[in-house]
């Protein structure tokens, strides 16, 4: 290694592949060559296959389950129902409301009723055909607005549904109601009559008022690797679970009580994760596999197929929203009101937290003196909804950005000008009263985005007749007829890390030792690598902090403390922070060791010291000792320095239940998008020509991976703008396949010009800001605005459907 040949003169050089560089992902080559082992690839000689019998009805009473015939199928080892769950029969992320296996009722189509373990998936399938479930079919509760606002709506969860918790579900179908009131609405809060009086007065004062209803459809995370994992029974009576998940410890916390085991008897190891985007935050097959493994004494593997996957995980909450904005003639916002109803489906999942985000960020990053927001998360018999990239902020962003465009049009202003006029900045307070105490260069971002070079006009293309440049693509629906160009802008404010009092700390264990004469760092965390590249960033941080090139990343498991979830754009911040903190402790111990051995002149303070190039270096005195000499080879009794540290972000507060006030968020992030589209206005087909963005990330930890995140987030937002919707009618999914649930292909994905700004956040490690979610907020409204500009249609539903563009009512 280079370390051994270095001279004193290059000791000041920073370690290769540290923070700010773009080293290769350690799993990159394996993934692109198809050799990476995903969770669905796991195999053991004596393993059994698990399968899940699911409810065909969105709402039904279970009168009886008979597994007798299923058990007779040769090759079947076990058939389990709720009666076989030894511990807690319900689990859940925030509310423990979801049965491990349905008990007396099913509340959504696809709910798990029984599980089978057999020697082959086909055997399991045959056994499931022989399980007899006697249902009394009930009318599904499928209208989220009715569930939120109609006191006569039947309840999805009757009070007392959970006998051991008689207080359960006092709120009926309203899982959470969160109001926010500011300005003149504060005084009138809670009294409907006085609130409408305030609104009337503000309307009269405004020069322009725009109001509309908006809908955001149910988006699927559409990860490529379906739910899968393997549970292996252990000799100590516990179980080892290898699974693709987003948060090992929250899985463990829910699995162990259901199995009736102490937490330490349920050990989890992260298996290869084929994408997540929020869909793996809830449990899927975890408890089922463990139950079957413990019952049969054999390893049990589950792999959902694609259709099952659509029923097997939560989706993005569909939202129904009503907005009104009033402004003065110069564009200054006077008031805004919003009613936001998100459909949580049959079980709570992350719905309360989603409501917390949708309400607090409901009006966006605009200075508005008077605000009234009512946000509801409700139970229905629709598929359960939970975490997905953007988490409640996506839905509100589509509405408030659409409103800003309508207002700009009403006032005859450029959409960017109106946004600049009302832009927040560092020191502004969002509608919850929380101060944005970090840079928020919104005006600069808007101006930069507006001034980015435009893509060439159609006529200026090398070959304008190339079908791939036209809406409809190679299916050849136009040669330019009906094609109109439009430009639109969108931006969004996203909270980063968990909010509302949640202490989502992360833990890192860092070990420094010398092996074969070379210093090596081992980084061990429980953080889930879900494709985002945390595995690369952890190594970069260790290199920068410890001046050692060789870093090994240990597999993520529950043998180390929780890292929190790979969601909320939080892992670089939180696990990055934990790795950095643990490295600092290791470094301090190395300094102490060197002092103990008299290798550091006494007058040099620790601030003068650093680790660099495999050596302990003094800024004033130069290289003091190599790590190899200081520690000695660990295989020959040398010193191993190991530290485990937790990292906590600053505390946050709950929103108060009446006025929605409180410093609920840890950090804010923003992305600004400009979309250019060509629309075939006669056929309603869209080609996105350019999707350019400006995002402030505080610090680009790995510039190449960062661009990947912004491109991916923008594309996921493009999908929501133009094609992605899980269509649900009366609780039934109409398109549970990638044949009919469309996600963007490369031909739908335009070139993206991306400008990255780095205004450091004084509160975060390296000044970084979570980067994965903000582009998912802003690209959707930007694209829809561009389609509106091309068509003149109001387009209040995301995704925009061809029918909406050509003016056919759906």
């Amino acid at each position, binding site marked *: 290694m280079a370390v051994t040949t270095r001279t004193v003169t290059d000791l000041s050089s920073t370690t290769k592949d540290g923070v700010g560089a773009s080293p290769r992902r350690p799993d990159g080559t394996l993934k692109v060559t198809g050799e990476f082992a995903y969770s669905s690839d796991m195999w053991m000689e004596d393993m059994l296959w698990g399968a899940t019998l699911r409810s065909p009805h969105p709402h039904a009473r279970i009168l009886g389950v008979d597994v007798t015939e299923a058990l007779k199928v040769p090759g079947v080892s076990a058939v389990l129902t709720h009666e076989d769950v030894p511990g807690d029969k319900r689990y859940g992320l925030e509310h423990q409301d979801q049965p491990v296996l349905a008990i007396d009722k099913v509340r959504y189509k696809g709910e798990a009723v029984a599980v089978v373990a057999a020697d082959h998936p086909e055997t399991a*399938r045959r056994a499931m055909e022989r399980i007899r479930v006697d249902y009394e079919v009930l009318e599904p509760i499928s209208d989220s607005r009715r569930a939120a606002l109609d006191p006569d709506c039947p309840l999805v969860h009757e009070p007392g549904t959970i006998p051991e918790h008689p207080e359960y579900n006092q709120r009926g179908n309203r899982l959470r109601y969160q109001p926010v009131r500011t300005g003149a609405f504060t005084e009138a809060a809670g009294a409907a009559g006085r609130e409408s009086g305030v609104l009337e007065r503000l309307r009269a004062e405004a020069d322009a008022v725009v109001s509309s209803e908006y809908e955001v459809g149910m988006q699927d995370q559409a990860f490529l690797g379906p739910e899968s994992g393997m549970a292996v029974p252990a000799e100590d009576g516990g179980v080892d679970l290898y699974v693709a998940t987003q948060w090992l410890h929250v899985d463990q916390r829910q699995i162990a009580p259901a199995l009736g085991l102490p937490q330490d008897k349920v050990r989890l190891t992260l298996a290869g994760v084929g994408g997540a985007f929020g869909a793996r935050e809830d449990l899927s097959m975890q408890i089922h596999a463990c139950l079957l493994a413990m019952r049969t004494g054999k390893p049990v593997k589950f792999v959902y*197929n694609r*259709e099952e996957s659509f029923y097997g995980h939560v989706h993005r909450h569909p939202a129904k929203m009503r907005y009104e904005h009033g402004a003065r003639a110069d564009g200054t916002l006077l008031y805004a009101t919003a009613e936001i109803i998100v459909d949580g489906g049959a079980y709570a999942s992350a719905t309360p937290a989603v409501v917390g985000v949708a309400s607090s960020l409901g009006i966006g990053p605009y200075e508005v003196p008077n605000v009234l927001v009512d946000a509801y998360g409700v139970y229905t018999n629709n598929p359960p909804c939970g975490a997905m990239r953007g988490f409640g902020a996506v839905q509100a962003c589509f509405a408030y950005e659409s409103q800003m465009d309508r207002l700009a049009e009403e006032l005859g202003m450029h959409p960017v000008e109106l946004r600049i006029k009302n832009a927040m900045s560092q020191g502004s307070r969002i509608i919850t009263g929380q101060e944005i105490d970090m840079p928020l260069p919104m005006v600069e971002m808007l101006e930069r985005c507006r001034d980015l070079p435009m893509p060439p006009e159609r006529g200026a293309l090398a070959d304008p007749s190339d079908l*791939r440049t036209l*809406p*409809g*693509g*190679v*299916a*050849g*629906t*136009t*040669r330019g*007829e*009906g094609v109109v160009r439009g430009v639109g802008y969108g931006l969004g404010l996203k909270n980063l890390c968990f909010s509302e009092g949640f202490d989502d700390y992360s833990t890192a264990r860092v070990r420094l030792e010398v092996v074969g004469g070379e210093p090596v760092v081992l980084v061990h965390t429980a953080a889930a690598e879900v494709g985002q590249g945390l595995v690369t960033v952890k190594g970069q941080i260790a290199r920068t902090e410890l001046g050692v090139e060789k870093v090994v990343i240990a597999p993520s498991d529950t043998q180390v403390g929780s890292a929190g979830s790979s969601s909320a754009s939080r892992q670089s911040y939180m696990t990055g922070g934990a790795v950095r903190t643990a490295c600092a402790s290791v470094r301090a111990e190395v300094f102490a060791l060197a002092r103990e051995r008299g290798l550091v002149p006494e007058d040099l303070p620790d601030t003068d010291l650093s680790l660099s190039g495999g050596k302990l270096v003094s800024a004033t005195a130069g290289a003091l000792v190599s790590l190899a000499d200081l520690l000695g080879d660990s295989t020959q009794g040398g010193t191993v320095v190991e530290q485990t540290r937790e990292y906590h972000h600053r505390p946050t507060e709950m929103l108060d239940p009446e006025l929605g006030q409180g410093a609920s968020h840890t950090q804010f992030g923003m992305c600004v998008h400009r979309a250019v589209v060509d629309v075939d206005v*006669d*056929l*309603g*087909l869209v*080609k996105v020509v350019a999707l350019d963005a400006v995002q402030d990330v505080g610090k680009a930890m790995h510039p190449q991976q960062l661009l990947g995140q912004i491109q991916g987030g923008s594309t996921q937002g493009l999908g929501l703008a*133009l*094609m992605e919707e899980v*269509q649900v009618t009366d609780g039934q999914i*109409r*398109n549970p*396949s990638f*044949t*009919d649930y*469309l996600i*963007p*292909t*490369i*031909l*739908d994905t335009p070139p993206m010009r991306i400008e990255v700004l780095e205004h450091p956040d004084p509160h975060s490690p390296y000044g970084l800001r979570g980067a994965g979610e903000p582009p998912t907020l802003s690209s959707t409204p930007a694209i829809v605005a561009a389609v509106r500009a091309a068509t003149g249609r109001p387009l209040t539903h995301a995704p925009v*459907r*061809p*029918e909406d563009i*050509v003016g*056919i009512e*759906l």
Partner: protein
Amino acid sequence: MEFLSPSTLEEALEAKSAHPDAVPIMGGTDVMVELNFDKRRPPALIDLARIPELAEYGPDGDRTRLGAGVPYTTVIEHLSGRAPALAKASRSVASPQIRNRGTVGGNLAGASPAGDAHPSLLATDATVELASVRGRRRVPVREFFLSLRKTARSDDELITAVLLPEPSGPQQFAKIGTRNAMVIAVTSFALALDGERRAVGTGLGSAGPTPLRAEAAEEFLAQEFDWEGGRSPSEATVRRFGELVAAAARPIDDQRGSAEYRRHALAVMARRALSWSVTDYRKGVTRCA
């Protein structure tokens, strides 16, 4: 499930005769999806991939004989002159990987109303060749589709080839999808002008329980069109043609689109296909003159 793997056509026909409920498999792009999604559990599969005759194509009198096992990629690369509409349709099929495997014969056998090949085969009056141990017969594609996924093929027959007439005028194909690649047709349309016979052919996909023709539209345009000079039809004629195409559709509302949108889109595609065809036709007339 039995897996039969004949190496000659004769063996394949014997197998099909012995197992009339066996499902033939070529590229597997339909059959495997149905098996994987558990939509179908046939007692046997007959693998046709090793029969050389099915993978061949070439002239057959004044027509082109396209073996039932020729993949779309070959149609795109080698038959864009002999079968322009079919080649355009082939280009719109799924992804390169699927186009390398999927075949026109398989498309016909599945007989999905959304099958990408069907509208162009209807519009150009192609013929299906069927074979069994009883012998071979030829059925016009226009008589092949009977009802939802039911065709004129008997249980003991295999589709061996499609016969494509020599084009004698412009041919178009267009397909609606809500993304710009890899889509099942929301609806699709093919148009063929036959200058020699002064006939118009149409084909509509995803517009009813079977692939359809718009016969009234064909007759109307054959009457109205200036076959001599290729003058542009009047706006009223173009509009009427579009209306007649849309009127021939019997679409449904489903997860891919509404019936009303399908009719609307068919009218737009028909008008556009007509105007492209007229331009191309005039070029042809000018060249001949």
